């Protein structure tokens, strides 16, 4: 990597476009491509769920607890409902909740962490104490409380067991990790020379934060986002034990899995398939995250330019 080399060779149009460069690096990551394919497939299956031959909520007493077969690809549950259909419909709920929780986490956590990390001082202290306060809340008790409140109070948009409410509740209790990670990344990055240079060139704080520091902090954000997606899917199923999550007979991956617990030895398919779906979703998002992190990595960008 010779600076004189860099200067002597004009940049190609592809290298000047950030998006194309990222894609170029991304597609060289086999895991990321695998993840992208699996996730796309999952999303397609979930979107086209109504095309299956069965209704996810209609029981068939004559077909209870049947193992996988041609008629029922993933077997049937204790009410004779087709598990494949329920998994597809469950995926709609679970993926929506997961994605919404991540979005809420990002929307709150990124600005809080960025402001705290960049400005430091009293603003940092204030924002971090707020974060600490949220971290110290016993999530379980808060959920019980919210569940009780929403039972009494009718809010127009937030029906008690709607996906929106559930995602909001989980999201509001899980943005703190984002904030802390971003803050840590900002604390390091703001001291680097290129930031000082940008500032010297008259770059505004907003520009520095959004254009220069944030892209460099993308790694931890993506890793946390993928982890959060998985845990939100699981947390949603925990909520239903409080009478607050997705209620039966509506399926979600989480409640399909938790209902299967007692039958693991006798009807293993009831646990294996929802578990497999959660596994595939999380692993594909993780791989995509991995690929994106590499693609955004400034050192890798320099490597590529240097090639």
């Amino acid at each position, binding site marked *: 990597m010779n600076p004189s080399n860099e200067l002597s060779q004009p940049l190609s149009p592809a290298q000047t476009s950030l998006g194309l460069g990222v894609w170029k690096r991304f597609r060289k990551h086999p895991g990321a491509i695998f993840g992208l394919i699996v996730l796309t497939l999952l999303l397609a299956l979930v979107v086209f769920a109504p095309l299956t031959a069965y209704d996810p909520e209609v029981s068939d007493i004559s077909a209870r607890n049947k193992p996988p077969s041609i008629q029922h690809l993933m077997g049937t549950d*204790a*009410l004779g409902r087709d598990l494949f259909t329920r998994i597809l419909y469950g995926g709609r709920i679970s993926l929506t909740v997961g994605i919404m929780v991540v979005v809420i986490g990002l929307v709150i956590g990124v600005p809080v962490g960025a402001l705290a990390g960049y400005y430091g001082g009293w603003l940092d202290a204030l924002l971090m104490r707020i974060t600490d306060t949220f971290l110290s809340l016993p999530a379980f008790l808060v959920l019980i409380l919210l569940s009780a409140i929403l*039972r009494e109070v009718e809010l127009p948009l937030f029906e008690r*067991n709607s996906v929106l409410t559930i995602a909001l509740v989980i999201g509001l209790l899980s943005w703190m990790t984002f904030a802390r990670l971003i803050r840590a990344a900002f604390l390091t990055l703001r001291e680097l020379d290129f930031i000082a240079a940008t500032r010297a060139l008259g770059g505004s704080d907003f520009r520095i934060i959004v254009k220069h520091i944030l892209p460099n902090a993308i790694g931890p954000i993506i890793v946390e986002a993928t982890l959060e997606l998985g845990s939100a899917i699981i947390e949603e199923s925990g909520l239903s*034990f*409080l009478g607050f999550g997705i209620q039966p007979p509506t399926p979600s991956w989480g409640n399909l899995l938790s209902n299967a617990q*007692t039958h693991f030895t006798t009807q293993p398919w009831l646990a294996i398939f929802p578990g497999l779906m959660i596994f595939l979703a999380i692993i594909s998002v993780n791989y995509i995250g991995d690929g994106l992190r590499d693609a955004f990595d400034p050192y890798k960008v320099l490597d590529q330019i240097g090639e």
Partner: protein
Amino acid sequence: MLETKRTLIFLLLAVTLSSSLLGCQPQSPANATAPAQTSVTIVIAEDPPSFNPVITDTGYDSLVMDLVMLGLTDIDENGNVFPELAAELPTLENGDVVQDETAGTMSVTWKMRKDAQWSDGTPVTAKDVIFTYNAILDPAKGSWIPGIDYIDSIAQVDNYTLTINYNAIFPGYLTQFGGEQVVVWPAHYCSAEQGFSAWDCAREPLSDGPYKLEEWVNGDHMTFVKNENYFDKGKPSIETIIVKIIPDAAVRKTMLLNGDADLDMWSSEQMIHDLEGAENVQVSNSPDNRWVMRIFFNLAAKGATDPVATPHPILSNVKVRQAIRMAIDVDTITKEFFYGLAKPNWTEFFRPPYVCDNVARTQFDLEGAKALLEEAGWVDQDGDGVRECHNCGTAADGYPMEMEFITYSEYGEPLELTQQFIAEQLGKIGIKLNLTVVEGSVLWATAADGGIEQNGNFDMDIWDEGYAGIDPTDYLWSYYSAEAAVPDNGYNYGRWENPEFDSLLDEAYTLDTQTRHDAFCKMATLLDEELPQALLFTAVNASVHSARLQGVKSSTNDIITWNAADWTLK
């Protein structure tokens, strides 16, 4: 250098892992408790909160209480009352019960056995009974037991005789200081100052029963050894009983199969079904079942408590309630989800001594149910599959037939499947039910603590209930009387109020069995017509035990350890 470092790290990891794995291995009972040669192990899901079920009422408290303490009487599996601390049963015939029919009062004289002792050698006397009564009565630190309000006074005649004077006729007198929950507490040992609801002697009890508590390791096990001072000298024949806390039902099942446990109380349908055919375990079914699975209808609007001023828009019409009952296929539910172990039942009076067969079972009939709903003014005119009110008289026109349907999570899968199945069946007749599954503690909390039922915050609920013992009067009062329809005053959650029922209930407060029987059977008809609750079936009342343990008798009237003194090992 790097190689050596790696090997070292690997070795360290291996040692840490293997030692932690070793630590995880289950300890053999020999290490934990050193049982004697004749020892049985009972497995239960959680620690009993105390030995006083009147206060804590989890069933686990009754289980251990029955091992160490006695009441004046108890009830066997067939509903016969037998004396424990009493020398004989007081009756009208033997002159120990005296009625004043004009005043409507009665007095009961109890003669106690003279050979009963506490495990410290102190005799059990009439003083202990009076002490127990006073402790329960204490307004600040006491509690409540059925019929305690009917007691005017208790007089000690001599050390082993006492007379209880009642201000009313109380038919449940025989088991008032006995049965599943009430025992006699030692006056010289329990602290009156601490009071009945909080005394230490309920956690470190003094025994007058067949066993005494030797050790209690919270969350792990309790050890009971033979009480040498038990009055029945030849008993018990088993020297040690270990009660182990095993929260997971699957683990309890495996322990029974492997011979590591001898008894599981309140065995679930699933466990009984799974253990069917296993050679080393047996199922003890009680002759009758107690728990009736039922739907509670809220006759007042959700969140309101007055069924007259604010009637429920859908359920206040009895035809709607009847249609709902008619649309539930009980046979399929009992056969499919309860493994054929549940029995269809449609009346409160289905087990001895009060059996009323004057009420016919409603047959499953979807068309009949639809017709009833049409009659009641609920029609689906907009074709969305859900009926709306059209001159229904209880709601505005166009009001949709949509309600919440709640159950509790602890019962487990059979009940949750039942809930979903019922919702689907009612969907077929145009009633939309939104399902909720909550923890029992949320469902049954007091009104002050935000309890769903007590506050009337429900439309329809499904859960199981039934009375203990042989006297249904107080149970009927608390679930159906107008007085019990007030939040936190009873369990008449649906706020059904019926003067005819209340006067029949008054009639039932008599010692004349025939009059009681007649009153109960009239109630049966009334409850069937008015349908404040839709009774569906009785859930199983059974315990699984090892084949070597003999004499275990499941009973509707008491907890499984009620006759532990008679158990033997094969």
